[in-house]
């Protein structure tokens, strides 16, 4: 999978602003970005606020059922939703994360690590928001190799020439 391949026979492009870094919210941007690249679309991802840690060398993604009345997990033949009063208890996030990761594995869904690797291989442009780096005290050395740093103007320049712009 190469980006040069895309540049030759398809001039389409897409930018995605990635603002959330939980295990569940990491999926849409990475699935769409890697699939678009596979379909010869030139992709640029801009990681900002809580999406920024998705560029860290070592990922430790978590999920929280707190405040998620839409999060119904298959359990014992039905779909279970967790009341907030339970979701706030210590250990619930860890348990929900383990459960989600088991489901992901069982259903043959790619891990975020796997999708990110494809993104890097496909030469998707990965841009870390410089302001968020400063705000949350990250160094470029905390992040995977090959990323770029940029700000709102960098994103806007990309977005203005892209066919599709998504905010996730």
């Amino acid at each position: 999978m190469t980006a040069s391949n895309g540049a030759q026979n398809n001039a389409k492009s897409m930018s995605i602003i990635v603002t959330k870094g939980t295990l569940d919210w990491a999926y849409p941007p990475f699935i769409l970005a890697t699939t678009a690249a596979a379909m010869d679309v030139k992709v640029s991802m801009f990681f900002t606020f809580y999406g920024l840690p998705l560029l860290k060398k070592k990922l430790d993604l978590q999920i929280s059922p707190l405040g998620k009345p839409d999060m119904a997990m298959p359990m014992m033949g039905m779909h279970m939703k967790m009341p907030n009063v339970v979701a706030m208890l210590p250990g619930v996030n860890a348990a929900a994360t383990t459960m989600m990761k088991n489901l992901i594995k069982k259903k043959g869904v790619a891990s975020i690590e796997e999708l990110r690797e494809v993104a890097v291989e496909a030469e998707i442009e990965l841009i870390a928001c410089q302001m968020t780096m400063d705000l949350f005290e990250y160094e470029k050395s905390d992040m995977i190799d090959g990323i770029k740093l940029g700000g709102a103007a960098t994103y806007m320049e990309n977005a203005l020439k892209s066919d599709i712009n998504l905010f996730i």
Partner: protein
Amino acid sequence: MADKLLDAKGLNCPLPILKAKKAINEVSPGGTLEVLATDPGAVADFQAFCRQTGNELVEHSVADGVYRFLIKRAA
């Protein structure tokens, strides 16, 4: 017989497409790739993938829950 076979059984969206993209690039232009998948969403997705990339979906079929796609790489 296809030039290359990709077994994507048990994999879920978007892995069959991502792996097919990689595999088709390893086939010479005009060559063929056979993909096996169990994801029911793969049918619509491989059609869309081929329309968009210019690779030809020569045929697709299903037997015993396994979807089979024959893709001819754009020359």
